């Protein structure tokens, strides 16, 4: 209950902020007076979102057990446990991969990501991990680059030079 209330509340605040943002940054006037301007449609959706999120919060509160309605139920959420969970590490690996992909390129970023994620998923034969990672990354690279002519991210600096050297084999 506490988590649902918290997330719905955060969403409500975000959409409320977005609505106010559209009021404070109005679009330029339309060419024809009866045209719909760029903000009206979004404002309509935001009003509906605010209404339904409010209704959802009320519903969650109404259907909750009396002991769950306490404010203290929010503080009892186990946030510390999240940092130690596999889920957190999984999300962190994915986010880090998406972040470093433009910098270090597909080959290196994917090689590191595949190794880390395989270990996270429970692969304990550590000698095989880099072998699997090499096969998987090479397979994707060759299929997309050579088979479909899709040029994957090269990275910058030394990583760019490394990617170019690899690509030269396929030209």
């Amino acid at each position: 209950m506490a988590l649902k209330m918290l997330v719905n509340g955060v969403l409500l605040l975000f959409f409320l902020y977005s609505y106010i943002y559209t009021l404070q940054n109005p679009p330029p006037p339309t060419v024809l007076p009866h045209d719909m301007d760029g903000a009206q449609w979004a404002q309509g959706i935001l009003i509906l979102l605010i209404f339904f999120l409010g209704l959802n919060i009320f519903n969650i509160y109404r259907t909750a057990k009396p002991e769950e309605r306490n404010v203290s139920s929010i503080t009892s959420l186990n946030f510390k446990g999240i940092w130690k969970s596999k889920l957190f590490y999984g999300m962190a690996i994915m986010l880090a991969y998406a972040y470093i992909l433009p910098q270090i390129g597909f080959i290196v970023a994917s090689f590191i990501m595949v190794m880390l994620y395989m270990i996270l998923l429970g692969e304990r034969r550590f000698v095989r991990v880099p072998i699997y990672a090499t096969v998987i990354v090479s397979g994707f690279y060759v299929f997309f680059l050579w088979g479909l002519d899709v040029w994957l991210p090269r990275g910058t600096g030394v990583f760019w030079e490394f990617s170019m050297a690899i690509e030269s084999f396929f030209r």
Partner: protein
Amino acid sequence: MLDLGVIAQGFSAIFLNPFALLVIVIGTTVGVVLGATPGISNSMAVVLAVPFAIAMDPMIALAFLTAIYCASITGGSIPAILFRIPGTPSSAPTALDGYAMTTRGESGKALGIALIGSAIGGMVAALAMLFISPQLTQVALTFGPAELAAIAFLGLSVLTFLDQKNIIPTIISGLIGLFLATVGMDPIYGYARFTWGNSTLLNGVPMIPTMIGLFAIIEVLKQTVKRDTLDTSKGSGKSGSILMPLREWFAMKWTVFRASVLGTAIGLLPGAGATIASFLGYATETRMSKDPSSFGQGNPKGVLASECSSNAAAGASLVPLLSLGIPGGPAAAIMMTALTIQGVQMGPMLLVRQPEMLTSVFAAMALTNVVMVIVAVWIAKIFSKILDIPYTILGTCIFLMSAVGSFALSSSTGDVMIMVLAGVIGYALITKIKFNAPAIILGLVLGDMIEANFSRAITLARGDMLSIFMRPITGVILLASLILLLMPIIKPLLDKRKKGDS
């Protein structure tokens, strides 16, 4: 209807020409493989085929492109069922029941239903093209922006059917999708909305990466927490069970009929497309079912309805292209460009000057749908073997495939970040707060279409909203949408009152 001589001419051009037959078999195989590859949309598959098509005779080129186009849409169902990665937005409803069947060990059956269902849908669309193409085109021509906005709204009205136990969170999910569709430039004046200075967001929230994030990434995260192998032990998920007994097909005859007719009707409308058709087909089956709660839990009718209607819509979308010269979507526009280069004049004059072109497309579609069943069953057998790989490797490959697929669409690493964010945020919203992923996708897909057409309708009506709603087709569709939208809310209340009275 076209005369028999022209029909025979079109058929003989395809069936009596060994090169044409070979080209269709190759086109179908390549189309299924490309469609099954995340990141390769049906329009990209057609683009990849254009250089080869230009070198061919126009009639064979049209048959080749038709084969690639139809087969790539069907191919999208394979990763949706096996890995919960819908390659196209129209495969999203397929992923719901298809993946649930896979986790129960029925991947073969789900693939079989999807492939044969697609073929039947495609055949119905091909028959409609052959027999009532000119008449259907005339009806489709009466649809203006107001009617198209109403059709898109009808697609949105299936929201309340997606999760009848959590109606308010599902409505919020649909609205979040609509909100995400407003990010970027507005469709009429190009005013930047909710970009907060970020240039990547100017083009809007990309649909495919968001969808891959909400489906595939959430699933990988779920499996990361749960177990290290995908549980497919409770049945035969092996390739041998792809073909279902005839009596089981017979039990689903009305699903096939409803989905094919609905898909064909939606596909005829320029711009409406396979996505609305597949969601509407899915929702119609949910509504008609005696056990709606089984949908989303691995009901074969869910897979059948979604695939049958999306493929029927894909086939039918070629009717406005051929008869009017109006491409229904990006893939059709690419086909039109390739054929115009070769001197084929699409539109009303095609029926006058080269009517055999239309019948040859019909013959190619019919043949593609037959070849597709054989080819796709074979490809699906290979794909379903992948499920035997330990999840430590498979899960990692699914993530990598999702990342490359998201990047490949527009060569943007920003799309990979959006995919991951959609997965991470979606995991919290969907698994913990009971929001609904297909509803978010539905809102995101239809948002642009509703807004753009509604804005145009208001401009054309000079701001007179009442005149828009009073147009007969628009009025009827909107009324039907409203009834559909409110039915899951009103029906329990009516049932309660009935029980109270008795």
